[in-house]
């Protein structure tokens, strides 16, 4: 699904959080958004999904301006997984995933067999099928994040937007989650903290102080010079002899000045 953002901006309490971002997301790609804390990644993701009111600039979803679409229309096309959303409701895993069918159901229609099939598929795709009956409060952080992704998949979106999906997860769950995302056949936009993980995306955008300052294939965008300038760390690119992939090793800038 093609998403086009033009001169997108967001200001709150006199502070500009996102400033004049123009960006195209191409159908089928996995797009990573990186940048230091407070650079506006989360806000940009919310703007792209139309979750913030009265932004500057425009977002077009396959040529249609987002502000002319209802929330329901948007939710049938874009699924958004925020950082660690929690609930105190006594929901089971399957209940939480069934919420993903909300945009496809009217107020009084019950979940049909087709909806149940989609929910089951989403549970299987995220490796949660055996936990469908588990209650939310018993899940670990990694399992909860997978439930959120399953819920987003049950929405049957064409664009999946993830805000730091690997945050707070241990390394095993980080890798299995990224592997899951990379195998999905939808367009993905995700904010990431780990630059090595960002290297696995098709394209990467770098944010600094609310502006998108670079955008392109990771190897071209994430250069040692740029990383030093934006993230204030020195990096040494290393090569993994197994598959020739580039890895970063980080050092304090002070140690190299």
């Amino acid at each position, binding site marked *: 699904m093609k998403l086009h953002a033009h001169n997108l901006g967001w200001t709150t309490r006199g502070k500009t959080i996102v400033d004049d971002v123009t960006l195209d997301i191409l159908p089928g790609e996995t797009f990573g958004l990186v940048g230091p804390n407070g650079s506006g990644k989360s806000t940009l993701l*919310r703007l792209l*999904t139309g*979750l913030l009111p009265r932004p500057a600039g425009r977002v077009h979803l396959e040529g249609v301006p987002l502000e002319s679409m*209802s*929330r*329901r*229309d*948007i*939710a*049938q096309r*874009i*699924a*958004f997984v*925020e950082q660690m*959303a*929690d*609930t*105190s*409701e*006594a*929901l089971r895993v399957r*209940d*939480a995933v069934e*919420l*993903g069918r*909300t*945009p496809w*159901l009217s*107020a*009084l229609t*019950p979940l*049909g*067999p087709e909806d149940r099939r989609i929910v089951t598929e989403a549970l299987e795709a995220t490796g949660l099928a055996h936990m469908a009956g588990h209650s939310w*409060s018993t899940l670990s952080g990694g399992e909860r994040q997978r439930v*959120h992704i399953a819920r987003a998949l049950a*929405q049957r979106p064409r664009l999946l937007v993830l805000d730091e999906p690997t945050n707070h997860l241990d390394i095993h769950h980080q890798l299995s989650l990224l592997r899951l995302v990379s195998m999905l056949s939808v367009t993905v936009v995700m904010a990431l903290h780990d630059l090595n993980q960002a290297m696995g995306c098709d394209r990467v955008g770098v944010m600094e102080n609310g502006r998108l300052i670079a955008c392109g294939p990771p190897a071209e965008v994430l250069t040692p010079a740029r990383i030093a300038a934006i993230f204030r760390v020195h990096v040494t690119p290393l090569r993994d002899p197994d598959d020739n992939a580039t890895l970063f090793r980080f050092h304090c800038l002070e140690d190299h000045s």
Partner: protein
Amino acid sequence: MTALAASYLRPVTLWGVAGAVTLTLAILGGVAIGETPLPFDTVLKVLANHLWGAGHDVDAIDAGILWSYRLPRTLVAAACGAGLALSGVVLQSLVRNALADPYLLGVSAGAGTGAVAVTVLGLGGGMIGMSAGAFAGASLSFAIVVLLARAAGGGSAQLVLAGIAGSQLFNALTSFLITKSANAEQARGIMYWLLGNLSGVRWPDVTLAIPVTLSGLVVCVWLARAMDAFAFGAASAASLGIAVRRVQIALIGATTVMTATMVSLVGSIGFVGLVIPHAMRFVVGARHGRLVPASALAGAVFLIVADVTSRILIPGQVVPIGVVTALVGAPGFAAILIRNRRRA
């Protein structure tokens, strides 16, 4: 599609019939039991006389007690219990806090202040005037409590503390209004009414309480799926296609109207909105498609039973119904607190 509708409708019809039967039995019980013992066949005869003019021969005083006094009282208790339970369900879903309830969040106190202001200061007049005053007070107190909770950091504890502050403020305003403007007899009457009292209920009150509760129920059933979507917060609901602002306004509006109407009719009755939805979550689960009708029914039955209890607890004296619900509700509140702690 018809097969699908039928397979869904069958359990719905079944539960609907079971609910209607339970509610009818509770209403019959509420009408039959009271200070003056009346035989059950008299109860049925009086109802038959009024409902389809059966023409049974019954004592006029008995008929008066049953038809003009106990039946309206029982029906208002049912409407009130359902309305307060629904308000609890809505508030708990929207503010995502298991402890939300119109009484604890100060909405009832604000409604009381509004109703007293209308009665004592003579603003407007008549029952609708008092309900409108209660609505204004309820909206104001709810807004203040939510803004205060947000300013304090927006957590679960903050909301309950803000509710205490709001309740105290509006209860103090009510006391101030009574002291300043009411005479001794008025003051006594108002204080008794504020504790929750169904004694003065007559038929005109029924024609206000039942339509308000039914409208509230329709809004809640219609928005049940939207309330489900709030499980992970407003942003998550929006990303699931819910028009968050519109749903919040409709639900909070319905809650405030229901609470305000009930307070203006019977005073402030606490804990129904807290205890009933919680009990129902154990029985039917957390999904609002079931929780909403189940809570409405259980709230109605609970308040009828509480009203009957309030009439027969001390022979020859009516205990305020708010005292009865608090005696059940306060331990329930404690249980929820402990449960939440264990989960956290």
